[in-house]
């Protein structure tokens, strides 16, 4: 079953760099024209489909357009042209502490974050013990998260995201935090997801993890999709860029 479908997707970003209000008002028409034209290409005519059970690694150099691709899948930005179809519930694994409030306790943040990720309160309350257990935070869960270390934050974030019970899990470079033991636990969780047929899209520079997890890679170079297929071949292409 198709989970994610991109058809000739192109994305331009608008550069909103006004020269201040004075400049803007005095040269209204040329300024509007300038803003309309000042855009840069982030992704150029990309097409692919991702299916159930796919664990897809997206690799490419910095600034190639990997994160843009992930944002498009998550639906937070819209393509400039082309079609994107996503079937199923998405859970993005957030950057350290995104959507968390530092003054709230870990427990309160689980509820808030779970809701923002699309769960109802009832669903969260059913899973909250399991989320806390997975995060290994123990009694710290009742402390405000501003006292958490970065490792603890990412553990909490990861625990919430995997408990959303998503059809599609999006991971952007966040596995590298947390200690070895927890990283291993995350990877095992992802493998478990893979086994039950979930779709995972994984952006990383960590080729080792990509090799371990993924069954397919997309190589993005200069805003274009240059390879879509086997992991070994893709990694080879990426390393020779």
């Amino acid at each position: 079953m198709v989970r994610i479908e991109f058809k000739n997707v192109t994305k331009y970003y608008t550069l909103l760099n006004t020269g201040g209000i004075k400049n803007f008002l005095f040269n209204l028409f040329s300024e509007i024209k300038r803003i309309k034209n000042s855009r840069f290409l982030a992704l150029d005519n990309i097409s692919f489909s991702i299916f159930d059970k796919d664990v897809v690694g997206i690799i490419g150099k910095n600034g190639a357009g990997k994160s843009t691709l992930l944002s498009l899948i998550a639906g937070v930005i819209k393509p400039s042209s082309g079609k994107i179809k996503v079937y199923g519930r998405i859970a993005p694994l957030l950057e350290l502490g995104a959507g968390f409030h530092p003054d709230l306790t870990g427990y309160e943040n689980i509820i808030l974050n779970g809701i923002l990720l699309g769960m109802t309160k009832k669903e969260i309350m059913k899973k909250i013990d399991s989320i806390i257990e997975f995060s290994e935070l123990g009694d710290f869960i009742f402390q405000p998260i501003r006292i958490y270390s970065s490792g603890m934050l990412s553990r909490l974030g990861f625990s919430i995201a995997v408990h959303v019970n998503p059809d599609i899990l999006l991971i952007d470079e966040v596995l590298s935090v947390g200690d070895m033991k927890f990283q291993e636990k995350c990877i095992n969780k992802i493998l478990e997801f893979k086994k039950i047929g979930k779709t995972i899209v994984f952006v990383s520079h960590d080729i080792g993890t990509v090799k371990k997890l993924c069954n397919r890679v997309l190589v993005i170079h200069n805003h274009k999709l240059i390879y879509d297929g086997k992991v070994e071949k893709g990694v080879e292409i990426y390393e020779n860029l």
Partner: protein
Amino acid sequence: MRNIEYYKDLIIELTKKDIKVRYKNSYLGYLWSLANPLCLALIFYFIFKIITKVQMENYTLFLISGLFVWQWISNSVLASANIFLSNASLIKKVKFPRNFLVLSLVLSEGFNFLVSIPVIFLFMLYYKYSISLKVILLLPLLLFLTGILIYSLSLIIGTLNVFFRDLERIVSLLLTFIFYLTPIIYSEGYIPEKYKFILYINPFASVAMLWHDLFLKAILNFKALCFLIFYDILFYIIATVIYKKLQDKFAELV
């Protein structure tokens, strides 16, 4: 069905968060939300009642009922300018209805106003006013209509500020200006006939008159009610159109 439950949970949790966070690290908590309008009331009382000796009945109660509502308006509108920018990390990653951030802001400030109403009642009792059932029954209607206006304006300002960040400064300047053009520290009767039109082009004037008349006269000001409903509909439509058109760009620009 799931959707309705989900949106209900989302708005409740976001609002709860805003309320909790506000006074999490302060000892006096709720009292701070009273401090600001009460302090302003004291200043204006001193200026108008003691120094310039303006003749106005029950000026204290008049001031307080207006200033508490104004605090709801100004706090929401000021904070809304930055609401999308300060939630950038969330907006960039998660797809959720972003206008709920504004809604929860307005609701949490509204909650603040709601819990300050007992203080107004205390003043009413002190000045030997009776609190009639009619006043209490009219509260939900006025809260709702005032809330819609604040929400719509806040959504417009929050959305436009993503694209045009000078707006934040303009808004804070304008608010000071509008405060004095709204019958909050003076009653509308003092406005010269020539300038009465200000009452009708300023949507906050209707809000102030409605609340004043409710607390001081225990009546529903029908004319002000009609104006407020008109402005509610107008600004709600403008806000929805602007937000719908521009929200797709939020994640790129915050």
